[in-house]
């Protein structure tokens, strides 16, 4: 596809117009541009050494453009070149969520390794592996829940100037969180399935061997048989109890995640529907603003002509009249 870059030509025109001073504008502008440049240069010198200390986290993410000073005060904006200003505070809030997502991804990788290790046949009881898996799962679920709460807080503060931007940031972060929680659920259910298969496997093998054993010894003592059977039964019962316990824990985290997913699905935009269209969103913004204005006007009108106001005034006046009558009664009688 063909494109054409006109920036060089544009800059050439801009520089010639600013140094020479365009014939159409007044001469005051040329002075301003010269002082503008001097001010820029001074500020750049003053502020650059302090930059690493003063810059907030969000600004560090976008590296500063060379030659443009980072400024906090708006006076600089008026006189100097426009600089990329500091974002409002809610951006910090929203920046926490992506960092949480990153941490969750790292932990998921660890969880995957722990799952694989726990599924490998081992001689020991595997209790430390189970503990590790549990803690990792809890941490990830915790991260997701915290991010979700932060996301809700993002919308909490009422209608402001940049409410659209906040809403859109919310949407994009919500879809990221949803995909993360779905990944976690898939991993968990796969692990659970394989775990169950494995439990049946060794149990089945044990059972079979024991059956064989018991059958071979069937010709021997009957007492030995029953003893083996009992021993067998208790072991089966114990392992069953363990599995059910583990299952319960995993199901609990699954349920938690399901709840989070349900909440998030309200925030996420369905792809391919009318809500996902840019022109629809632009129009609906205009429409809701108009609607809001109409509602406000209606509310104002009803309040002014409100029957409530009239009643209240009438009652107060009646109260005063009664008070006056009471005083009069006291005085004259």
């Amino acid at each position, binding site marked *: *596809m*063909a*494109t*054409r*870059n*006109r*920036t060089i*030509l*544009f*800059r050439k*025109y*801009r520089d010639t*117009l*600013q140094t020479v001073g*365009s014939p*159409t*504008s007044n001469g005051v*502008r040329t002075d301003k*541009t010269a002082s503008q440049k001097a001010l820029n240069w001074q500020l750049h010198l003053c502020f650059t050494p302090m930059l690493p200390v003063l810059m907030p986290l969000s600004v560090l*993410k*976008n590296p500063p453009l060379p030659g443009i000073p980072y400024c906090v005060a708006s006076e600089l*904006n008026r006189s100097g*070149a*426009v*600089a*990329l*200003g500091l*974002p*409002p505070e809610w*951006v910090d809030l929203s920046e926490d969520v992506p960092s949480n997502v990153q941490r969750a991804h790292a932990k998921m990788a660890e969880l995957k390794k722990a799952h694989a290790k726990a599924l490998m046949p081992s001689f020991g009881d595997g209790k430390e592996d189970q503990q590790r898996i549990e803690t990792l799962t809890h941490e990830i679920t915790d991260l997701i829940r915290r991010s979700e709460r932060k996301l809700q807080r993002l919308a909490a503060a009422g209608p402001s*100037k*940049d409410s*659209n*931007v906040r809403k*859109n*940031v919310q949407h*994009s972060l919500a*879809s990221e969180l*949803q995909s993360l929680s779905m990944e976690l*659920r*898939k991993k968990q*259910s796969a692990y659970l399935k394989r775990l169950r298969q494995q439990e049946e496997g060794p149990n089945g093998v044990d059972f079979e061997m024991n059956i064989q054993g018991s059958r071979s010894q069937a010709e021997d003592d009957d007492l030995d048989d029953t003893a083996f059977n009992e021993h067998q039964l208790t072991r089966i019962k114990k392992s069953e109890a363990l599995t059910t316990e583990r299952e319960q824990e995993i199901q609990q985290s*699954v349920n938690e995640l*399901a709840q989070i*997913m349900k909440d998030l*699905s309200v925030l996420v*935009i*369905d*792809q*391919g*529907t*009318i809500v*996902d*269209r*840019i*022109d*629809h*969103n*632009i129009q609906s913004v*205009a429409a809701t603003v108009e609607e809001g204005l109409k509602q406000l006007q209606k509310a104002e009108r009803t309040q002014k002509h409100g029957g409530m106001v009239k009643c209240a005034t009438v009652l107060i006046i009646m109260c005063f009249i009664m008070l006056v009558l009471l005083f009069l009664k006291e005085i004259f009688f």
Partner: protein
Amino acid sequence: MVLVTLVRDYINRMLQDISGMKVLILDSQTVSIVSVVYSQSDLLKKEVFLVELMDSISKSKESMSHLKAVYFLRPTSENIQLLRRQLANPRFGEYHLFFSNILKDTQIHILADSDEHEAVQQVQEFYADFVAVDPCHFTLNIFSNHLYMLPVAMDPSNLQHYCDRIVDGISAVFLALKRRPIIRYQRTSDIAKRIAQESGKLMYQQESGLFDFRRAEISPLLLVLDRRDDPVTPLLNQWTYQAMVHELLGIQDNKVDLRTIGSIPKDQQEVVLSSEQDAFFKANMYENFGDIGMNIKKMVDEFQQIAKSNQNIQTVEDMAKFVDNYPEYRKMHGNVSKHVTLVTEMSKIVEERKLMLVSQTEQELACNGGQGAAFEAVTNLLNNDNVSDIDRLRLVMLYALRYEKESPVQLMQLFNKLAAKSAKYKPGLVQFLLKQAGVDKRTGDLYGNRDLLNIARNMARGLKGVENVYTQHQPLLFQTMESISKGRLRDVDYPYVGNHYQQARPQDVVIFIVGGTTYEEARSVALLNSTNSGIRFILGGTAILNSKRFLKDLEEAHRQIRSSSTGV
């Protein structure tokens, strides 16, 4: 490369090199251009957290200097003026300006002059100046489309704007494709000739450096046609999905607005019909109404099965599976409701207006002969009170276009009956149509009765019988495309611009119809492209017509000519 992919690539390139939170500012035309190819969720992935229109942003005063502004505008003088004011008081941190077509030097001067704060970081031309509704179909969404029917002397400045917009759109298509075409036009149409010559001047003389691409392969062909060469196609009622929805309900920028029709649930009042995003629509957009009904029934049955299994949740595993598949389920539910709503509405309209009956006669008028039978059928339908006014008007127009020269007495009778029956009929409209698009004005062989080969072909078709009476019409464009692929497009009828001649068969052909295209023609193009004949056709127009829009253009042009003649 496909048109939708081209525009998407342009937008991707705009957004990818700029890091951080961005705001995208569009004007009323580029909003359509971007909305049909890019979704809101795609924008969010690219960190564009706010989208604004140029007019509304000039009214607000708040400063958001932590955002970087990406402007994507058409290079019109109004936009440049608005931009000037905004650059004088910049609200955003950085300004990246992208224009959808060639900027004039004066415009760059004006912008450079107003950029006192040096907020502008780049100024680029990204040639996405057309609305890519389907992979091989684009439109320019021109509002006052009737201008092509007016004589040149009537409104020269508006006509110049109109032609400029068309030339801009066509050159943007070729710049996006990175090719420079050989240009041919329809001889009998003045406006087609004008546009072809102006495009040629632009591509070969004024901006020849910009258009100078490697010419290793065969040059593509640009063919500029006039809508009036085939006035029948926009007047016919359609029975294939996409064309039918546009004819009965109206599609604008791939959206269907159902708000005017009552009793529709809130979330279905505006729906999106895009072949890129909806797999069912992509598979069925060119199928006829009967087949669509069956396919929708199949889809509904599948969906009901899944819904039933979802209700039957017994174990925790089932619950887990349900939650896993919930997003898919919700999407499918939305899609099924959308198509069912559309088909229901269309069936209602077909029933109300008795379109099966009307359309049968229309197709007969468009395809087969027999003047006597046609006259009788049209008279019967005119007498039928259930037929709506617009359908009566269409029938008389179709009859007039075909049997213009035969039996003028009967034609007069039909005109009178039409005027008597339809209260809102503006007298002289049909005659106006004949003046614009009558037999003397047309180049192509619309009814296949000009040369012996076509007559023979028609007779053979009549004897063989047709598969479906309602879809037997084939637009004239189909024959034109066939001639191009056989290399038999006559030089006499479609002369070349300049002295560049086509040596061999072209491999890419862009056909532009001044006055608008129809979805029926887009369907022919798509079906021909899918046969892999070695040639790829792309269709474009000034608007996408249905019978209502075409009649509106006719009426508007008729009114203007009448008022100017009475005034003068």
